[in-house]
Structure formats: structure tokens, C-alpha cells
């Protein structure tokens, strides 16, 4: 088989990540239950917390991004996803709007750190210092939604989006069919 034929025969690949999120959207992905067996028939997983592959091994068709960008590592990972994924999807409200982490956006970074590590009523920090190990990624001045950092192709709203919504969206993409989500799957109030 030529390389090209191999590519055509190979299953498309999918990658997922959680940036400044709570992994709730990943839980929702797992909530597709036994359909995950159908999913592995359709795709292979590349970089993802589900299989614990840390770095991309090649090009992917779809990247699912949970969470917005709160620190420099989030930005690097997101840019990496953009580079390797043909289609990038913001999954859930944190990726789309910044979500709960973005509640700090109206407060200065210094104030946030002071409250978290020095002055908070429940803070126990005998060192009296704000953690500053070189391994800790620097925080951004505020939390950014993904589409402000890179081009995002689709948005799946919800906190988290229901498993059925994620499933329907993925299947539509992978089978090249138009996505037709029933009202119940995109209504959140």
C-alpha cells in the first residue's frame, strides 16, 4: 500500500484536551456510555487525557477543546491543537465564554493571587509567599475564550454539553452529514 492509500484506509484521528476547565466536559464525553465502542470503530484517539497520550503523534481530523485559556500552557496547547487538527471544536461554556474561571476577569491578577495564597480567610500558607516554581505556568492577565486565541470552527455550548449533543456532533462530522440537533439538546434554561 502506498502512504496515500494508507491514509485513506486509516481511521480519522481525534484529540481532546482540558485547558482551564473542570474535566466536566470530558466526563460528558465518557457519558456516551457504550457508544464509545462505536466511536473507536469510527476513530482513533490521538493526544487525549482519555488514553493519556501527552503529545500529538500526527495530524488529526477533529480536536475537542474543553476550557478557556488561563495560563501560558493553555495557550501553547491550544495553538498546538490548532496546528494539528483540521477541525477544532470549543466544547462547553468555559471554552466558549471563559466560564467560571473567567469570574476572575474583573479582579486584578495580583489581587487574585493575594486572596488565594495570602489573605483568604481559609488560607493556610506558613511560607507567606505566592508559589513561584519555574515549572508553574505563568497566568494570563485574564481568562480568554479559545476563539480569541485561535480560529475555532465549531462551538458546542452547555455546561457541560450533554453526551448526546457531543455524540451527534461527532457522528455528523465523521460521517459527513449535516448536524441536526433537536431543540432539547441545545436548550439550557
Amino acid at each position, binding site marked *: 500500500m502506498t502512504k496515500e492509500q494508507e491514509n485513506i484506509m486509516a481511521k480519522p484521528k481525534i484529540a481532546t484536551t482540558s485547558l482551564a476547565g473542570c474535566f466536566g466536559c470530558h466526563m460528558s464525553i465518557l457519558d456516551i456510555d457504550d457508544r464509545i465502542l462505536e466511536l473507536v470503530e469510527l476513530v482513533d484517539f490521538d493526544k487525549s487525557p482519555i488514553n493519556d497520550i501527552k503529545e500529538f503523534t500526527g495530524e488529526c481530523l477533529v480536536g475537542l477543546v474543553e476550557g478557556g485559556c488561563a495560563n*501560558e*500552557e493553555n*495557550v*501553547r496547547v491550544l495553538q498546538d491543537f490548532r496546528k494539528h487538527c483540521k477541525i477544532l471544536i470549543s466544547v462547553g461554556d468555559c471554552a466558549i465564554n471563559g466560564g467560571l474561571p473567567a469570574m476572575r476577569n474583573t479582579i*486584578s*491578577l*495580583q489581587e487574585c*493571587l493575594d486572596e488565594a495564597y495570602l489573605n483568604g480567610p481559609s488560607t493556610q500558607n506558613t511560607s507567606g509567599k*505566592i508559589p*513561584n516554581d*519555574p515549572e508553574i*505556568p*505563568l*497566568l*494570563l*492577565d*485574564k481568562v*480568554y475564550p479559545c476563539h*480569541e*486565541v*485561535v*480560529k475555532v470552527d465549531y462551538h458546542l455550548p452547555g455546561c457541560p454539553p450533554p453526551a448526546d449533543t457531543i455524540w451527534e456532533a461527532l457522528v455528523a462530522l465523521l460521517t459527513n452529514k449535516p448536524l441536526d440537533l433537536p431543540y432539547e439538546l441545545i436548550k439550557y434554561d
Partner: protein
Amino acid sequence: MSENLESVVKTICEGFSNEKSRMMDIVREVQENFGGVSDDAMDLIAKQVQTPRVEVESVVSFYAFLSKEQHGNVVISLCDDIIDRMFGFERIKGVFNEALGIDVGETTEDGSITLETAPCIGMCDQAPAVMVNNEIFTEVSGDTVTEIVEQLRDGVAPERLRRRLGDGNNSNPLVSAAVSNNIRKEDEVIFAPLTCGNALKKAIAMSPNEVIRDIKTARLRGRGGAGFPTGMKWDFTRGAQGEKKFVICNADEGEPGTFKDRVILTERPQLLIEGMVIAGYAIGAEEGIIYLRGEYNYLRPYLEDTLQKARNSNMLGTNVMGKEGFNFDIRIQMGAGAYVCGEETALISSCEGLRGDPKNRPPFPAQKGYLGYPTSVNNVETFCCVARILDQGAGWFSQIGSKGSTGTKLLSISGDCRRPGVYEVPFGIKMTEVLEMAGGEGAAAVQVGGPSGQMIGPDDFERTICYDDLATGGALMIFGPKRDLLEVVEYFMEFFIEESCGYCTPCRVGNVLLKQRLQKIMEGKGEPSDLAYLEDLGNSVKSTSRCGLGQTSANPILSTLKNFRPLYEALVKEDQPFQPTFDIQKALGVAKGIAGRSSMHFAE
């Protein structure tokens, strides 16, 4: 807590019978007395009128003229609308900054003078304008600023500051304002000579239904901008169930670029009052309220005096003009600097002593309005038309103007033209004619109807001003070829963001997003899909907002996208499909400073 505060607050509340529906008046007076409504004062007011404290605070925090923080005894408000920006706002702001040693939003160290900005104070034809407490200064130069500050420093009270009094009643001792009427064209409805009482006499000789029939025959439509048929509104109010009924005059002229009501209130308040009394007679009301915008407080003594004279001649009071059983009186309700209160249901909330939140409709005010009673809210100019219709006849009125829009319209014209001011013109006049009259022939754009209206270009100048074509409450802002129209749009969006009451999401959030995307385009970072985004979001804001403010707040963007699309297209880069606004180095700046190290992922 000082005893003085306690006793003064008590006296003020008692002055309004401890009535919580008079909260606006109570907090305004407390603010005037103490330069702010402090936490203590709010507690005292709440106790005195027996209402939860939050009711007081919600009012204090809502209105621009009210504040919890202590202001100086003198508050200087620089009018910051687009026209003032075009005619020297920055320059005079700079002179104030330097002379006072403070920036906007600050109070001098001795606590005596506070510097603020205010959206349009209704003086666009004589910009730049400044308010010093209740006193207005127009066409302000750097020298005027220096002179004002020097006198204030010498202890001169704002009402005694030197000024050149304006024409007409602006020189009346009760007004004594440095404001010009700039009436450029008079016609036969509003500015024709006035004989007080004729219209009212004719009205009370008829039955109320006959009065309403006359208004219908004249085909009078509301002058505030929406153009609802006045006769129909009165019919609904008259027919609605209610122990009492109310007539409210909307004199909250807050639409930037509009100032014609100010001139009516200065020169023809008698006509307005007569129109209100006729409305009271027609719908069966005994009480009327003039909701006067806070910026026009300088007109209040004169209006109170005019009302008193009307009482003395029995145009107000019991058995008005000898009509047995017809009693009617009017009070003035002062606003406190909130644009949304020009929306009739928000205006009613404000009259009731609440935040200026719009109410759900239905029920419409004609069914359940002020304090739950059937209420007719009409514009200042509408009441004036009513009085003329009763005096001169519905037939006479309906001959003026065009078929669907009878009568004359007052236009407030400002911006890049040689003769800004107020023009009374018959409906159906072409924009080209208006521009010629005002000396604005070379206009690149005209904003019709203020920020909530639409911006049109030369292609549309052959269109006519009437309800069926270019509908307007009267504001026309003219922009010459050298103006950056997108900057104008940006200002308008800023205005709506500031003035949104915050109740519904499309207006509170949507306008912020619209402005952000507009700014992205203006910075040259636009991509083709941004225009579709603006249109899409703009239409959502328009169709899903709760009140008239929100429903029209996207118009600056939507109307320029329609009429001035090349301006946007020139800034949008076709070849670069994604233009991030995100700048990693900028976003990391603060953290790098705090951590004292550089980024491990992104080298500078």
C-alpha cells in the same frame, strides 16, 4: 450619624408625606443637601418611609445624578456627546483638568468641586456645553473655563457665576440661563403666536369623546419618535377601567442630538400645559405629571411659575375654566440623568420612585400605568399640537404636512452645518431641503433620530421626513466629509452600553460584544466573518431586547452596515481569514512582573 442628617432627612421625607412613590424627590433633595446619599442617609430614608433599604439604594445607584459617594458642593458636568466631541470636548476637558488639578470622576482635594462627564445635556446646537450644578454654559471656550474656575475658587456660587444670558425667556429672571433658543424657522403649529385658554375653552365646550374624535380626525401621531396615533392612545386610556387616570408629559428629552423640547419648555410652556389639561379632560384624569429631565432643572422655577399662573387663571385647579366637575392639576417630576427613562414604561417606574426599569408590556400604560392606573404618556410637542388642533381645528391641522404625517415637526439640527438650531417644518420635507436650510449641504452623513435612529448618506438625501419614510423624534446630526463615521458609531455604542438599565441580557451584554467587535474592525484586525457576526448579533439584540432602548440600540451598527458598508469592508482583510485579538506578551505582562521570571513557552 450626625443629628443634622437625621433631622434633615426626616424633614425631607415628611415634605413628601413619607410616600415611597416620591423616592426620586426625596433622594434628590438629600443629594442636594449633602452632596451624596450616604449609607446612613439611605438607612434613615428607608426607616422614615418604611420601605426596605434596598429600595432606596436601587434608586440611588441607578441614576447618574445620584451618588452614594460624597460629591463636592459644586459638580461640573462636561457634556460628552458626539457633537461636543467634534466641537472641543477634549480641549475644554483639558483646561478643566489643569485648572482644577483633577481628572474626570475626581473631586478636588478640599472636597469642594467634582468633575464629571454627562451624556448629551440637550445643547448640541451650542456645543461644547458644561453644567455647573444646575447652571448651563454653552459654546464654552478655554477662557470661559478659566473664568468659571477662578470665580468658583473665589467662592462664587454656581447660580451667581457670570454669564451672558440667552435670547427669549432664557433671560427671564426665573431662567437666567446662558442658553440660546436658536429658533431658525417658525411655522404655524408650535411657534405661532399664542392666545392662552382658547383651545381649552373650545375643548370643554365639547364632550371628551368629541375632543378625542378631533384628535383622530387631525390624524395626530406621537412626536417622540414612535408615532403612535395620539387619539387612539387616549381612546384606550379613556376606555380603560380605573378609579383614577393620569396624564404624563414625557419631557425627558435624552436622545443625544435632541433639544427641541427644551425650546418648547422655554418659549411655549403655556401651550404644553393647555394640551395636558385638554388630555386630562379627554381621558378623564385629574392629575398630570411633567417628567422633566434632570439636565433641564434650570427651567424648573420658570415652569413652576407658569403652572402657578395657570392655577391663578383657573386653567388648572378645581372646576377648570368654570367647567363644573372637571378638576386637573399638574406636578413636575424631576428625572436624575437616565436616558432609559425616556422610554414610557421606564419613565413611569421613575415617577413611582423606582429605578428606571422598563416594565413588561402588555399591560400597556393605557391600561395599567402610573401606580397601576390607566395613564397616557405623550411627548411635549404632541401636547402642543393638541392645543393647536383644538384651537384651529382638526381640518386645518390635517392640511399641513403629508398624508400619513400631518402637522409640523420640530427638528433639532446640530453638527457640521452653518445654522444649527430648532426648525419647525411641515412633515414631508426632503432631507436636501433641510440640509440647505441648515447650511449643511456638503454632508457625508446624517444621523436621523439620534443614536437609536439611523445614519443615512447622500444617496438617501432625496428622502422625506415623515413617519412613513425617515421617521424621527426630531434629532438630525450632520456629519461632514472629514468625520470618521465609525468613530461616531463607536460613540453611540458606548452610549447605549452606559445607558442600558441592565435588566435583559441582549441589551446588557449584546451591546458590549457589538462594540468590541466594531473596535476590532477599527483596529484593522477585522475579518470578513466579523461583518456577518455584527449583523447577526445586532439583529438578535434588536429582536430579543425587552424595551425600546434595547430594541434600537444596535441601530448605529445595523444602519451603517446597510448604508455605509464600504467603510467596514475597507477595514476588513479578505486575505487573512483569522485575525486574533489576543496578544500573548501583553497577556503575560502582569504575571511576569509578579513572578519575576520570563515565560517558558513564549520567548519575547
